[in-house]
């Protein structure tokens, strides 16, 4: 999506403190810790393999995108999702289990929602996968609550001046996911086609869903 790709800078030290020496140091350090915990019988390396594999291949924003697409296509589901996202998604069956309290918040022309965790890195990862580095980093966590339009500008997003902005700070075990606005020109589209327009950032509130002409 455009707002994800227009920051084509070098991979500098803002993202990766673990270049070079820290990388090898951490590889050795974590490997040593795994060895110790395995030898003590605390962990099973085969289970660790499966956990890593699930994060890399199974859990990701495609889950959230399918939920958003269904909400766009099915008004009854959308109503159920906004009333109780945990229950509505549990009924779908095909999406991974969600925690106790998942709350879906709807973007409208009048109000735009943004999700943040200023204290750590709380994120609806059952729906979106593991959070990106920027979500967990100081610039986003510090500025989302008092300069959301500046943060949106960093993502190449500009909202109308009179659109209200609501920021949800995830300070408890409640998790939030944004239901982005359905793009114009998608009337009659299947859920599958719609899902391809739903970006991860649009479900955090730092992006918008793709327009039909931006779809791959």
């Amino acid at each position, binding site marked *: 999506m455009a707002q994800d790709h227009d*920051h084509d800078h070098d991979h500098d030290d803002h993202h990766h403190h673990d270049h070079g020496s820290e990388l090898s140091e951490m590889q050795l350090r974590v490997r040593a810790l795994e060895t*110790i915990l395995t030898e003590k019988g605390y962990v099973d390396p085969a289970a660790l393999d499966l956990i890593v594999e699930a994060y890399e291949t199974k859990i990701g924003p495609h889950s959230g995108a399918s939920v958003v697409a269904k909400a766009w296509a099915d008004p009854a589901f959308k109503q159920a999702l906004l009333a109780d996202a945990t229950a509505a998604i549990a009924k779908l069956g095909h999406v991974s289990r969600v*925690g106790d*309290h998942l709350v879906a918040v709807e973007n409208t022309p009048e109000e735009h929602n943004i999700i943040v965790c200023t204290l750590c890195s709380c994120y609806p990862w059952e729906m979106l996968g*593991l959070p990106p*580095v920027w979500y967990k980093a100081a*610039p986003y966590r510090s500025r989302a609550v008092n300069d959301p339009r500046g943060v949106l500008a960093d993502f190449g997003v500009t909202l109308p001046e009179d659109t209200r902005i609501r920021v949800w*700070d995830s*300070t*408890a075990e409640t998790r939030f996911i944004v239901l982005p606005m359905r793009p114009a020109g998608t009337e009659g589209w299947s859920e599958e086609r719609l899902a391809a327009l739903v970006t991860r950032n649009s479900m955090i509130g730092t992006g918008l869903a793709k327009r039909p002409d931006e779809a791959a």
Partner: protein
Amino acid sequence: MDGVHDMGGMHGFGKVEPEPNEPVFHAPWEGRCIALNRAMSFTGEWNIDMSRAAIEELPPAHYLTWSYYKKWAIRLENMLLERGLIEADELAAGRALRPGKPLKRTMTVDKIEAAFNRGKYGRPASAPARFKPGDRVRTKNIHPRTHTRLPRYARDKVGVIDAVRGCNVFPDTVAIGQGEHPQWLYTVLFDGRELWGENSDPTLTVSIDAWEPYLDPA
């Protein structure tokens, strides 16, 4: 604790820099690190709030400069050391020098689904909720040296109850081993100007989730 982890509203950290086509992990050790954390959490030797507190207690300079998963790795070492589940000479040697201690449970291949269950934090209520949607509340001006989930920017501020989220485990006590003490949890909504003053974006509102002990009627 009033630490550097409590970042809401701080200045000087610069622009948000999204990484195009970001991989799930930037190095294989990051995946092993999160898997080790998940597997050890499953043993029940600590709870999620204790593990959050253990990150917050890292030295501020390290918190700000270490990568996310480096913090997770060293936090895990620290929690294991504090509980005597490993010892420093073992970390130095890179291998176990003593047998493991008995654990309540360990994560085996048949149990990995549990690594992806966030757990349940709702609890039966022992008293009715004190507040209802629409009520005005003032957050308390508290500065505990231990773990809390009331961010500094939202202390001593007037907001409105937006939603009641049930009765939930109370982080401030469970993080320090003093029990779950379930409390009513609310989404509390603040006007941007209440938090940031007259120069705030007038279209901004911010909500936090706040447990009842954080709130007074206003």
